[in-house]
Structures are given as structure tokens and as C-alpha cells.
């Protein structure tokens, strides 16, 4: 210890060192080191502790060196030198550098006292002439070995409690025991602290097992730590700024790059503007609400939490439970559960999926004889599959009243009157009645049967008033719709016959005769027609014979349809032959006939005049074509979608058309709406034969080969938005089906909701409301 103190004095220590006793730093350093390593790195390495000791011992030496080599003046000189020398002389570079380095190193040592290595000097070697680095000589004096000034106890960094029971506390370098210093009791300690004024600045040294006073450096360090100062006393946080790159003379005059400054430095960004404008626009349009009201604010601060409706979401369904075992699954089931030999064989033969149960009951006399369950894995697996694959959805059964799906139609009883019963029946000698006509006033009916007899009878009584006999079948009978004259046309083989019914008032009779057999014949048409008009003189005519005969071209066949224009001047006939010449339009006033179509695709089934416009409907097998007769062009083609059209009729308003077909369908066309049917009614079980609209009542009827007549209510509205209302009203049964033919023709009575129907069974019936 004494040696260390002397050494320090030789190293020109400052006042600090002089004040402090020599052994204090070493003791303190030991103390510190012990404390650190005992706690943290106690088991690390003993050698480290030795090195630490060395380092700790070194730094006072560095201090001394830095102190010794020129104090503040050196520093100032170096800086001055640097300023003066820079850029002036090259030859003194090395020296300057040396000096610089020195000053720097000195500064460094001042900053960082841990720089323990000696500074090397670069000198020109005498031998090589090259600069070489020369380190200062290490003086092999006593002070250079740190081990000499170490503590006498050389046990190292060990837990000192190992020596607690021993009289010594360690060994010195010579292996002599370092004896434990004598320690007084607590009272002595207390007295010591009272007596010794430095007692409160001393700390217990474990190695020495005694109190050692702290050095002033250590005390200063403690103070700094306690006051949250920088622990290093030499650290100056307020050092003057060293302007390395700024300051006078160091301004950057030249730019780093010669490129001109880009435009983007001062032009506002176009794309940013676009982005911003997009947002602005969105805000203006309200797509983005800038200050969106918070939903939380709408809810009042305090509210009853139970007021909310309980969730109507059904609770998640629990997974189905596995079936509980029954007697058959028992290890010792009753005898009746055991399968017989046949059952066992049958079970084995059936497929796994088809088995009623997936095991066979087995009997074991004791539970310990039951083998392991072979299907365990499979069963667990299938159970897991069941749970995983079966979605637990509660299927709500739809409670739909099937009656609510039926369209809301008014009840038929509210749509009276319509025909409901057969009032009377007119026998026709069991001949098929294909032709039927009802007079425009609804009082008379004319029927023509296949034996060539035309009967005129009263609708309400059914009494036959007169009959005419023609050779061959009667194809069609139709009354003239005019009210000032009264006659009807009969279609027989290749001829049209016009007949005046009896018992007419004189005025009507004269008018009729003048229409059918005028005194002055109109001039013959320019183009000769193959149709000849032959009439008997008006005076000689009676109701017994025909007054006018129109001879259709030969081999034109039987006219199967006669249809009158509304005004009663034109009538169109459809003859039975295929191809051209089937359709003729006759004009009474000019006594002229013409074929409107040169060529018709397909065989014409029916023709019709439009009730209000100069239109003409022609039904071929599959299509209904609508022609404008005045302009002579095709207006539209209606596609009913049925295979063979049998009949059609146009609504008195002229905007609707019904088409009956042999394939049991009845198609309702809204002519304003579409070329496709507005509605297709399939109520008949056999082919339709005839359809007819009532001229005044909102009714229409269809007759079929199934022997029934169906009566429908068909209300048509004037506004185009409301669809026609079609209500099935009544099925009239009463005609017999003979040879597969049922009701061949139906006609309504004007002014009354009465229906006249002609059947293949030779009966003509009148149906009344």
C-alpha cells in the first residue's frame, strides 16, 4: 500500500490524488468489482476477474499520462496549428499529422479515459527510410505491474462466506494466511462510528473483512449517480460547437449537381389535384359525408337495455345425440335378440348400407370375455362426419294455404247471367249438324245437317217452322247481319244458296228481294270471275226456294264456312279444297266474287272479318294472319302455338281474338299486345270444334269433341293497362259423343245470354240462363 502511494506521487498526481490516501482507489475498485461479479457474473470466470483487476489498475496510469503531456496549452496549440497549417504546406505534413494526432489523442484521452493503449509515433526509419510506427517504451518499473499494488488477500473472486468459519480470510501472494481482522461487537461499531468522523464515508470490504473509507472519486461518483448527473466527472455536456463543415470559409458555393431544378419543385402536382378534386366532387355529391354523424350520438346516453326486441334468430340447434344402446347392444342380450343362423346369413349377405343395424348381437357370458369393439374407429369417424357434414339448419315449413295460390277470380254466381241448363232440344233425325246460324235478333235459328236438310226454327220454342232440302251435305249456314233485310246463306256443294225466311213484314221482304234479286243488275265486273250469280225474279221468288244462287268454281268443294262482314254486304266463304281458290269474298251489291289471295301457304281453316276495321283474319293450320283488305297487305301473323287450328272468333270490340284448336287448346290473343297468346286455356279433354263470342254480353263459349260446351266470362277493358278478365263459368254437358265427334258448332243468341249448340248426335240444344 505504501509503495502504491509513493508511486502515484512520482507520477505527478494532482491535488485530488494527494488528498486521497493511496490505498483507497484500489480498495474501492476491488470493492466495486466484487460487488458486480458476485451478483451477476459470479460463476463466470475467475480469470476475468483478474483481468478486470488489471484494467481497473491501469486507468490511473492513463490519467497520469494525459495529465503529464501538456495540459490545455497543448490543445490550444494543436488547434491553432491546424488552422494555420491547413492547405499551406505539404512538407510538414507528417509532423503536423503527428501533432494533430497527438492533440487528438490527448483530446480523446480527455474524453475517453478508457483508452489504455500507448500512442504510437510514426517516424522515418533510419534503416529503410520509410515511415514507421514507434510505440513508447514500456518502463519496467514497479508501478508498471499492477499486481504489486493489489490487495494482500489473494483468494480471488470467491464467495467470502467460505471463510466465515475460519480464523483467516484468505491468503496473500506468498501463501501466508491473511488473518481476519479483529472486529468488535455492535457497541464497538457504534462507538467507532461516533468517534470516527469518516465512518459514514466508509464501506465494508469483503475481501479484507473490514470497513474501508471511500475515496473522494468514489464519493463523487456516488453523488453524481444520486443526483442523476453524468457519472463521469470529466464529461462536459456543454462543449463548444466544433464547426467541421459549416462556418466561415466552408460555405458550399457550387451546387452538387449541374442539373436545372426540376419543374415539380414549384408547379403544383396535377395528379394530386385530380385526387383532391375527386374527393371534393364526392363530397359535393354527397357520396362522402365529411362529418358523418356518429351513430353513437343518436342513441341517448341512458337507455333501457331490455327494451330491445329479443333476437328472433333461432338458437343454434344442438347436434343430434347418438342413439342410446338397447338390449340388442348388450354384451349379454336376452336370447330373443340373438340372430338365428338365417338372419346372420342374411345380414352378412346384405350390403353395408342396406343393413338394418350395423352389428350382430352377440352373447358373452361375462363382461371380461367381451373383445374390443372392432368398429370403434369407424363409428367415431362416421359420427364425426355426421356432425361435420350435416348442417344444423332449422327448416321452417312453409305454411301456405293452397287456396291462396289460386288466382282471385270473381265467383261465377256474381257474373250472371250465363247459360246454365238445356232449355230445349231440337232433334235432327240423328244426322250430324255441322251448320248453325242464329238470326241477328236472336229469335230464329237455322241448322243444316249432313243429309242436306236446312231447318228454320224458333229458338225459344224449338218449333221447326220451315225446312229446305238440298242435295248433299250442308257445309255452313249463316244469317245476314243486316236488320233491314232478312235472309241467310247456305253453303252446299260448290254453291251458295240465299234463302228468305217466311212470314216477313212486307217492307222487309221487299227490301230483301231487292237486295238479292235487284231489278237492275249491276254492271258486270271488268275482269270476268269464275263465280256465277244466278237469281230468280223477285216476283216469282217465295220462301220455299232459293232466291239467289252463287255458283262457286267447279271442284271447289263444299263451303265449310260462311262469314259475313258486319255491314252485310260482303261475305267470305272457305271451301273445302286445299290450295288456292279456297277463300272467296262475295259482294252482294255488286254481285261480284273475288279470291283475295292468289296463293295461300297452307290450307285455310277459317276466315273472319274484323268487326270495325277493314281487316281480314285467315287461319291456316298453324298461324292466323291478319290482312288489311283496303291496303292489301299483311299486318301481322299470330302464332297460337297449336298444331291445327279449328276455329276462331273475334271479340266484338275487335281487339281480341280467340282461337280454338284440335289439340284441345284455346288461345286468347290480345291483338294490341302481342303476336303470342295472352292466355292459353286447356280445359277441354278433346279437340275444340267451335268458339264464339257473345255479341253483347261478356261471354264466350267453346265446344269440343268431348261433348261439352264451356262458357267463359270474358270482360275486356277499354284501358290498355288492364288485362282481360277470363273466368270459367260453366261446363254444359248434354250432348252425346258419337263417332268421336261431340259438339260441332255453338252460336250465341243476340240480346239474350242463350246459347245454341249443334252436336254430332243429331241434336241441337238451346241453353238458357
Amino acid at each position: 500500500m505504501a509503495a502504491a502511494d509513493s508511486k502515484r506521487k512520482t507520477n505527478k498526481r494532482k491535488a485530488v490524488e494527494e488528498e486521497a490516501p493511496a490505498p483507497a482507489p484500489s480498495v474501492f475498485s476491488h470493492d466495486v468489482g466484487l460487488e458486480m461479479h458476485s451478483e451477476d457474473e459470479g460463476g463466470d470466470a475467475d480469470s476475468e476477474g483478474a483481468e478486470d483487476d488489471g484494467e481497473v489498475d491501469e486507468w490511473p496510469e492513463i490519467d497520469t499520462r494525459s495529465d503529464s503531456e501538456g495540459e490545455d496549452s497543448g490543445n490550444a496549440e494543436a488547434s491553432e496549428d491546424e488552422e494555420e497549417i491547413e492547405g499551406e504546406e505539404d512538407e510538414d505534413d507528417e509532423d503536423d499529422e503527428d501533432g494533430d494526432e497527438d492533440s487528438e489523442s490527448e483530446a480523446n484521452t480527455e474524453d475517453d479515459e478508457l483508452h489504455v493503449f500507448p500512442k504510437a509515433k510514426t517516424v522515418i526509419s533510419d534503416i529503410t527510410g520509410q515511415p514507421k510506427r514507434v510505440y513508447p517504451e514500456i518502463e519496467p518499473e514497479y508501478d508498471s505491474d499492477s499486481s504489486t499494488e493489489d490487495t494482500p488477500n489473494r483468494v480471488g473472486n470467491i464467495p467470502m462466506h467460505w471463510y466465515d468459519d475460519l480464523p483467516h480470510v484468505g491468503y496473500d501472494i506468498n501463501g501466508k494466511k491473511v488473518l481476519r481482522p479483529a472486529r468488535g461487537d455492535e457497541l464497538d461499531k457504534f462507538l467507532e462510528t461516533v468517534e470516527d468522523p469518516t465512518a459514514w464515508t466508509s464501506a465494508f470490504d469483503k475481501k479484507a473483512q473490514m470497513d474501508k473509507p471511500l475515496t473522494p472519486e468514489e464519493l463523487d461518483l456516488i453523488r453524481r449517480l444520486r443526483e442523476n448527473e453524468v457519472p463521469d466527472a470529466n464529461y462536459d455536456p456543454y462543449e463548444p460547437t466544433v464547426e467541421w463543415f459549416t462556418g466561415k470559409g466552408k460555405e458550399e458555393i457550387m451546387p452538387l449537381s449541374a442539373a436545372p431544378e426540376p419543374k415539380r419543385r414549384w408547379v403544383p402536382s396535377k395528379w394530386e389535384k385530380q385526387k383532391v378534386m375527386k374527393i371534393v366532387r364526392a363530397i359535393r355529391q354527397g357520396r362522402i359525408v365529411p362529418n358523418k354523424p356518429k351513430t353513437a350520438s343518436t342513441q341517448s346516453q341512458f337507455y333501457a337495455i331490455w327494451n330491445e326486441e329479443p333476437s328472433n334468430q333461432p338458437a343454434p340447434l344442438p347436434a343430434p345425440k347418438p342413439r342410446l344402446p338397447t338390449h340388442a347392444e348388450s354384451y349379454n342380450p336376452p336370447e330373443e335378440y340373438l340372430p338365428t343362423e338365417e338372419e346372420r346369413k342374411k345380414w352378412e349377405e346384405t350390403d353395408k348400407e342396406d343393413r338394418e343395424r350395423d352389428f350382430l348381437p352377440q352373447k358373452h357370458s361375462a363382461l371380461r370375455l367381451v373383445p374390443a369393439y372392432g368398429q370403434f374407429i369407424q363409428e367415431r369417424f362416421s359420427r364425426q362426419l355426421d356432425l361435420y357434414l350435416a348442417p344444423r339448419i332449422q327448416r321452417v315449413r312453409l305454411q301456405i294455404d293452397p287456396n291462396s295460390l289460386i288466382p282471385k277470380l270473381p265467383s261465377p254466381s256474381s257474373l250472371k247471367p250465363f247459360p246454365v241448363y238445356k232449355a230445349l232440344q231440337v232433334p235432327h233425325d240423328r244426322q250430324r249438324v255441322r251448320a248453325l246460324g242464329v238470326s241477328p235478333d236472336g229469335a230464329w235459328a237455322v241448322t243444316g245437317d249432313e243429309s242436306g236438310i236446312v231447318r228454320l226454327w224458333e229458338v225459344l220454342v224449338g218449333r221447326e217452322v220451315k225446312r229446305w232440302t238440298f242435295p248433299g251435305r250442308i257445309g255452313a249456314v249463316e244469317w245476314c247481319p243486316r236488320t233491314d233485310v232478312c235472309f241467310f246463306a247456305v253453303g252446299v256443294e260448290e254453291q251458295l244458296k240465299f234463302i228468305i225466311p217466311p212470314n216477313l213484314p212486307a217492307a222487309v221482304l221487299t227490301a230483301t228481294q231487292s237486295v238479292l234479286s235487284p231489278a237492275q243488275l249491276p254492271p258486270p265486273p271488268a275482269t270476268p270471275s269464275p263465280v256465277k250469280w244466278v237469281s230468280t225474279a223477285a216476283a216469282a221468288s217465295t220462301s220455299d226456294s232459293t232466291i239467289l244462287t252463287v255458283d262457286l268454281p267447279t271442284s271447289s268443294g263444299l263451303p265449310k264456312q260462311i262469314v259475313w262482314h258486319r255491314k252485310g254486304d260482303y261475305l267470305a266463304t272457305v271451301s273445302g279444297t286445299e290450295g288456292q281458290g279456297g277463300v272467296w269474298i262475295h259482294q252482294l251489291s255488286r254481285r261480284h266474287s273475288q279470291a283475295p289471295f292468289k296463293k295461300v301457304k297452307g290450307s285455310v281453316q277459317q276466315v273472319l272479318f274484323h268487326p270495325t276495321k277493314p281487316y281480314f283474319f285467315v287461319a291456316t293450320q298453324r298461324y292466323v294472319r291478319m290482312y288489311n283488305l283496303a291496303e292489301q297487305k299483311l299486318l301481322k301473323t299470330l302464332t297460337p302455338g297449336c298444331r291445327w287450328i279449328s276455329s276462331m272468333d273475334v271479340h266484338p270490340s275487335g281487339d281480341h281474338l280467340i282461337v280454338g284448336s284440335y289439340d284441345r287448346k284455346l288461345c286468347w290473343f290480345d291483338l294490341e299486345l302481342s303476336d303470342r297468346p295472352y292466355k292459353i286455356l286447356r280445359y277441354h279433354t278433346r279437340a275444340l270444334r267451335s268458339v264464339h263470342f257473345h255479341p253483347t254480353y261478356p261471354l264466350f263459349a267453346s265446344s269440343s269433341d268431348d261433348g261439352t260446351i264451356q262458357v267463359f266470362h270474358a270482360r275486356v277493358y277499354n284501358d290498355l293497362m288492364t288485362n282481360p278478365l277470363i273466368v270459367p263459368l260453366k261446363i254444359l254437358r248434354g250432348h252425346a259423343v258419337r263417332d268421336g265427334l261431340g259438339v260441332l258448332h255453338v252460336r250465341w243468341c243476340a240480346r239474350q245470354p242463350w246459347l245454341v249448340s249443334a252436336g254430332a248426335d243429331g241434336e241441337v240444344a238451346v241453353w238458357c240462363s
Partner: protein
Amino acid sequence: MASVSGEHSHPVVFTTQTAYPFPSQKFMIPISWRRYQLSQLVNKALSLPKPVPFDFLIRGELLRGTLAEWCQEKGIGEEETLEIEYFESVMPPQKMASLPQEDWVSAVSCQHPGHVVTASYDGCVRLFDYSQKLLHTSAAHTAPITSLCVIPSSSTSPDSLLLATASHDLTARLISLSPPSSPEVEVTADANSSQRATSQTTASLHLHTAPLSSIASDAVGSHLLTASWDSLIGLWDTSVPATDEVPEDATDRAARKRRKVDDAASRPRRKAPLTVLKSHTARVSRAVFTPGGSAEAVSCGLDSTVRCWDVERGLCTNTITASAKPFLDLALTHSGTGALAASSDRTVSLYDLRGSATSVTHAGASLAHPATPSCLAVAPDAGGGEHQLLTGAYDGAVRLWDLRSVKAAVASFKVFEGRAPGEGRKVLGVDWARGVVGVGGEGGVEVWRVGSGQGERAFPS
């Protein structure tokens, strides 16, 4: 009455409007009784010298089965007192004669005592007597005759009979017919009966431009009403004018030129109507005078209206509009306040004519038929009474109704039973006078006896 023991009985009070009153006290009647026992009870209680059959009405319904059945059907408890009205029952109709004819008979009249006049669709008026003998055939029209009436003559001469016929040929005619005066002579001189029964068409009534549907005369025989399909009703008097009141048509003139031999005297005079009643919008099916006289008339038509007319002024005084009931025939009750109208919806409805024109009229009673009722006739005063009527329908049945019991007909009988199944049996006209009912239709004429059993004139069977 003997088998009362152990049987339930029902409290009953009897009422009547007939000449056989019954003490109004409560009777306990066994519920197994039928009409026959009840009728016996009334007869014995009143100790009538001659048994009179009665019919019994319980709450407007004729008793047809036992009392128990009726109570069970109506759900009447045993304690409830029933009020039973009784009246002399109608004897089941008896068929007196069947006169088949070739053509349909559209109208029959039994108004002339001892004779039946028929009009048929071949345009002939035929006169039969009660011994089913054809006395006379008069070809009155060339077209079917639709209606016929016997005009009651003020001079009660039995030998001249004035008929009025309406036809499809747009005219009605007055025919004076002279039946043989006494049946005794007729029996002896059978062969030349046609000489004694002569007829002459005295006048033809020209107004209508469509077939006529009916003709009717008033009670005294001074006026006629014709109804036609052209919605007009013509009012005529029955006097035969001296000269033609209506010029001839061209066709008629031409036809007459051909028959130059026609005697001008025998040719019927052309007569014009006194008034034309216009208000109907469709065919008028029937127009009749009210029983009071010739001042008022009632008509019905296919336009579903029943109209009352002030005949002298030619105005429609009341219109009863039914919905969708084209009326086919009309008859007035004896009081003249009720109109019975048969419509093509298979009902015969009773309308009260006293209601004001504005009020909506409902049918008082509605008699439902299984077929179209084409004709009807109310009972004559002497016959059965106030409440009975006959209807003929297209199903060949004539039904006797009592207006107090409208649920079902009191009696019905089928006519034209002899016809083949395929042929129709439509009844087109009925007439009821003095217990004799004439029924005309498809099968000809049949004469039945309907009434209370005391037909004052015995019909030789």
C-alpha cells in the same frame, strides 16, 4: 189415434181460412201422424157429413211426411207449439182425354163451356167437345198460331163463339165460330157436323212487324191486347169494321189478284189498333188485362220487365225490373194485384203490382222448376181458390202450385206419356176453367180434371 200408447206427441194449434173452422185450442198430436190422419181428425172433429180431404200447412210448407220427420228436418223441439193451417186439398188430377194432333198445339182454351179450342202450329184452330170429338177445323192462318183466346161475348148466345188468334204471320185474327147448339143433335148427326159448325174469319189485326206472341181479351170481351216480338203491344176493340182500316200490302194485293174469285164479303176486314203501347225494349211475351176491366193492362217481356199500362192513355204506369229474367208468360191473380211471371231461368215469380214505380221490387214468391216454365194459368174462381196456379214446363209436366207453399208443387202430372222417348213433350199452353185443365204441347192436347173434386160439370170419361 189408436196407437198413441208410448208415442211422443206434439202441441199443435189449427187454423184455417176455409168454411170449416176448428176450435182454437192446443192439441197434442202424435208425431207419427201424416196428412191422412190429420185430415181424418179434422173430419171427425167437425163431423162433416161428407168427408173432405184437407191439406196441412206448417209454416208455409205442406206437410208431406209424418210430423216427426218434419220436426226433425226443421230442428223443432217437442215443446214448441206448431200452428198448422189447413185447407181443402186438391184432388189428384185425373186425365180426362187425350187428343193427339199432328202438329204442336200452341194454345188451348177451355173458357167456352163444353168445348176445347186449340190452336196449333199448322195454322188451324180446332174445336173439340168434351167427348174428344173434333167438331171443327178452321185454317185461320197460313203460319203457326202462337196464341188463342176466346172472347167472352156479352150476348150470351151459346151458338156463336168469338175467337182471337195471334200468329207468326204478323197478324191476329178474329174468328167467329158457331159450334153446334146442342150436344144431343150432335150425337145423332155425326157425319155432317162440319156443316153445322162453321167458322168465319171476320177481321185481321194489322199492326205488328214481327210474329205475335200472345193475344188476350178483357173480361167483358170488348177489347183485345196483342203482344209481339217487335216490342209493341196493340190495343184493339172486338168490333168488326165495315171497311178496311189498313191498306193492303203489295204482296197481299198480288196474292189476292191471283185469287180473283175471292168474295169481298167473306174476306176479313183489315183492322187497325186503337192504341199502341210502346215501352218494352225487347220481345213482349204476354199482355193481359187486369181482371177489373179494360182500363189497365199488364205485360211482360224478354227484357226482364213486367209493365203496368194505363190502356186508355197508352202509358206505362209501373215497371218492375227483374235481373236477368226473360219472362215467357204472365198471369194475374184474381185480385189483380199480383203478377205471376214465368221466366226462362226456370222460376215463376210473384210480383206485387201495387208497389210504386221507383221502388225496387222483389219477387214475393219464387217457384223453382226443373225445366223452363212456358205457360201458366191461375185457378178460376170457382175452382180451387185464390192461391193455386198451374204451370206447364218444357219437361212435359204440369204442376199445380199453392202460393202459400212455394217450396214444391202441390201436385204434378206428366202429359204426353204416350210419346216415344226421343220426342219432346214440351207443354206450350195450359188453360184452367171450371175444374178442367187443357194442356197443349208437342204431343197434342190433353184434358185433365183438376180441382177440389166438385167440378160442377161432369166431364164424360
